[in-house]
């Protein structure tokens, strides 16, 4: 079973529906025991980094996620869930993440030209920088859907895909069994569903 970690951040309707459309058993769970017994974990999230990181810490789920990651269980962070995998975020201050992937999360506004709108919202084409089983059903230039104002930097050695938005933006990372997508696979049509299917086969 795939556990979609429910820590009170964001809407899980589309994620649950995506797995159900794929015929893959998945459920939203907040109970540590169920997270430990799951075959793989999805860490979703929308909203502010600080608030989400605090909820993970206070519910004790941070430790559970770190332990499960260390055991080799496949984990996929999505959007803010991906950003939480990193060591730090500089969204309104400086906040600690799970530290499962080296790197940090910073504001795109300071990095991309003023003519580009932030949040970056819409479909953008994936460019692979490294082979990854997550993209086994996806082609170079396939488009996926983004809504974000911050993105990961200083993580080149674990970056598996980028998109172009004024500069190269980290679109997906993979480090061992830990993966992250800045985009929303559950909102990226058949391309997105095939990424979730690939993750479910890890």
């Amino acid at each position, binding site marked *: 079973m795939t556990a979609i970690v429910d820590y009170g951040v964001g*809407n899980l*309707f*589309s994620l649950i*529906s*995506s797995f*159900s*459309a794929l015929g893959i058993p998945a459920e939203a769970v907040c109970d540590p025991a169920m997270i430990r017994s799951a075959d793989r974990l999805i860490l979703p999230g*929308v*909203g502010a980094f600080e608030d989400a990181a605090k909820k993970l810490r206070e519910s004790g789920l941070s430790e559970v996620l770190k332990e499960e990651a260390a055991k080799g269980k496949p984990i996929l962070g999505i959007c803010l869930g991906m950003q939480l995998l990193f060591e730090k975020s500089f969204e309104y201050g400086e906040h600690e993440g799970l530290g499962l992937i080296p790197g940090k999360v910073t504001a795109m506004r300071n990095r991309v030209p003023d003519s580009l*709108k932030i*949040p*970056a*919202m*819409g*479909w*953008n*084409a994936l460019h692979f920088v490294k082979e990854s089983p997550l993209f086994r059903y996806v082609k170079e230039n396939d*488009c996926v*859907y*983004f*809504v974000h104002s911050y993105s990961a930097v200083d993580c080149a050695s674990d970056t598996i895909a980028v998109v*172009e*938005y004024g500069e190269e933006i980290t679109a997906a990372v993979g480090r061992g069994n830990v993966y992250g997508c800045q985009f929303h696979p*559950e*909102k*990226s*049509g*058949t391309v*997105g*569903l095939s990424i979730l299917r690939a993750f479910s086969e890890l």
Partner: protein
Amino acid sequence: MITKRIIPCLDVRDGRVVKGINFEGLRDVDSPVALADYYSRCGADELVFYDITASSDGRRIFTEILKETAKKVFIPLTVGGGISTVGDFDRVLKSGADKVSVNSGAIRNPKLIPEAARIYGNQCVVLSVDVKRVGNEFRVFAKGGREDTGIEALSWIKNGVESGAGEIVLNSIDTDGVKQGFDLEMLEAVTEIVDVPVIASGGAGSIADFITLFKTLPKVDAGLAASIFHFGEVKISDLKEEMKRAGIPVRILD
């Protein structure tokens, strides 16, 4: 680069898709779930569902249809119509919407946009505005374009963005249903004053109208239309191929 979005709009009443010509004279088109699924497979980048029901029973049916759609269609869904409170945001977001569009509700309650933006984030709040020329100014209209509110549109839109709207849908009543092209003058005026995404609505009659829109106004992010898609006058796959040929960044499905 982020692609230009093509967005079919589905007006839903009593569980069916309808489309008005100049907001009057509604015609039945199809099942919303089937039509949404069809558009997604044709390459629509996003869908807008407008609830044009007046009754609470109709609202319940709409919410059910939204859920059914979100279980089948995995592209962004924006929902509007009858959004007056943060509770309405909650209802449609829990039923599968990704963004919520406010129109008259924001006129009646100036706190709606800032409250919703605080809870759900700016990216979730879309300000939809029906605008018509009155004398020498752009004026906001309410009640499906029937009532002149007396509010000047550009300051209303600027204020909406400052209070938390993360996207603008600009419906020009002057060009809506006329099929002679988008209201480029009105759209340009809006893109000059806001830095959030702007969706053009009202007036598309052909593929060429979309090409003209994106070529003339590169700051416009998306084009929205209803009847020309519903009645097959413009096929989304053909439209996107033409956009690609014209050098406009676009998402093409295999």
